[in-house]
């Protein structure tokens, strides 16, 4: 019991900078024991740590909250000292893995949670060292984008064409807004590819191969709707909705099939490339 009490009153070692652990409040003069359980939790830095973990659960709303929490605390413990390892390759990789974990915590549609996590990732990647000013450079930013895209099922050339637009050069300092836009673009692209893949499944009617004329008609209608959209005029949204309604699409597909062209097919890769080209055209290049 005495040993337990003795261990309890000993101040916990300060955690690594930027690890997410809150530095505990030191015990009072003479290292006296905390008066209550609450005070002990406060001293150990547990209260704020658990609160933050619960907030992350509420933000992410995972299907498996327990395994999510386990992963969260594991990452918290594993994140080693970052101050000294800023220049170290291993330290950089560790920070990259952690940043990747942060940006994946919440879906991009949960805007507030996603933005919070992106800013945490930015902080995490921000170079800290004796001779380094805080901030994210183009090299680590581009690496993060590549890692995000690698984990998706987007075709290689599609990813390359997006990265060409949003990557930064190794030496460049990346502002937070650019960082956020780049990360968001990657996640939205992955979702776009998944949706386009589902659309191809609908167009091929289970046969595995879709009619080229129908595919072109559908993509043409989408392009037309995207061209009409100008979000300074809300009526354009209604116009796009009308153009992409079942009636208009049915007419477009029917018209395409009635054209006397040689019946040819369009494979999945070609369809995904053409569809994502419409998306990538709307991504603003970094300048």
């Amino acid at each position: 019991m005495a040993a337990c009490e003795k261990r309890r009153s000993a101040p916990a070692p300060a955690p690594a900078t930027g690890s997410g652990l809150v530095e505990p409040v030191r015990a009072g003069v003479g290292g006296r024991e905390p008066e209550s359980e609450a005070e002990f939790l406060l001293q150990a830095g547990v209260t704020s740590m658990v609160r933050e973990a619960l907030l992350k659960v509420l933000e992410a709303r995972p299907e498996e909250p327990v395994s999510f929490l386990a992963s969260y605390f594991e990452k918290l413990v594993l994140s080693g000292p970052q101050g000294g390892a800023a220049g170290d390759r291993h330290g950089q990789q560790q920070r990259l893995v952690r940043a990747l974990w942060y940006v994946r915590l919440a879906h991009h549609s949960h805007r507030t949670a996603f933005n919070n996590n992106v800013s945490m990732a930015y902080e995490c990647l921000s170079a800290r060292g004796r001779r380094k000013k805080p901030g994210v450079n183009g090299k680590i930013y581009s690496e993060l984008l590549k890692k995000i895209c690698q984990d998706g099922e987007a075709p290689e050339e599609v990813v390359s064409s997006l990265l060409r637009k949003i990557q930064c050069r190794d030496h460049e300092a990346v502002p937070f807004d650019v960082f956020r836009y780049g990360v968001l673009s990657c996640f939205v692209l992955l979702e776009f590819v998944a949706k386009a893949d589902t659309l191809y499944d609908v167009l091929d009617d289970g046969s595995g191969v879709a009619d080229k004329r129908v595919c072109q008609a559908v993509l043409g209608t989408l392009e037309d709707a995207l061209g009409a959209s100008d979000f300074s005029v809300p009526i354009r949204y209604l116009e796009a909705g009308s153009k992409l309604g079942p009636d208009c699409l049915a007419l477009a597909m029917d018209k395409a099939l009635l054209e006397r062209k040689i019946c040819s097919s369009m494979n999945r890769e070609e369809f995904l490339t053409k569809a994502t080209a419409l998306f990538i055209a709307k991504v603003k290049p970094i300048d």
Partner: protein
Amino acid sequence: MAPGPAPCTVRSPVVLQVGDVKTDLARPGVAIIDVALPPAQPLDVRVGEIVFKNSYTAFLTVRVQRRRPCDVGREGARKWVTCLWNHCLMPSPHTETGSQDYFSLFRHQMLCDVDQVTAVRLILRQPSPVWLHFTLEELRLYPKGQQSLQTDFPTWLSHLAPQQQPENLHGGIPDPEKVSTEVQQLWVLTEMIRANQTAARIGRFDVDGCYDINLLSYT
């Protein structure tokens, strides 16, 4: 019939108040707006629709001055009839709801015929003391057969013309409902990325990887 609203003169609201207007602190709860229609030949206006923007009026009564065919030439024989009684514009007069909405009153809502109308009187009521002023703005009268927004509807918003109805479509087309659902999701994602565009810049000075020598500093 000429397109657009009927030509008319909308008079300024006249406030009805018991007691002295200057010394009484009680706010008036009733106002009247008179609309004078120019004499039309051979018949007066047949009102099809009354359009206006509310400005904190809670209830509206509409009275019209009609001329019956037998009364032609007799100025005094024109009758005032109530064609809309205490029509609610603000469900809860003490709160904002409906206070600045646009309203359209159609013929079928009227309690009587609104043909051969020579004048219209709008009686505005606002029982709540919360609002300092109340009136109706952008008041327009449309003759029967006209539609207030007729010219504003683009073709894509109206129903498909009968010859465009997708009835006898080619047998081989995929399910339009499913296709539409998926394509709309692609549209939303693309719009989302466009709406999130950042104004922040890296600040590059090169063009295709090459720098203008004048931009380079030797410091």
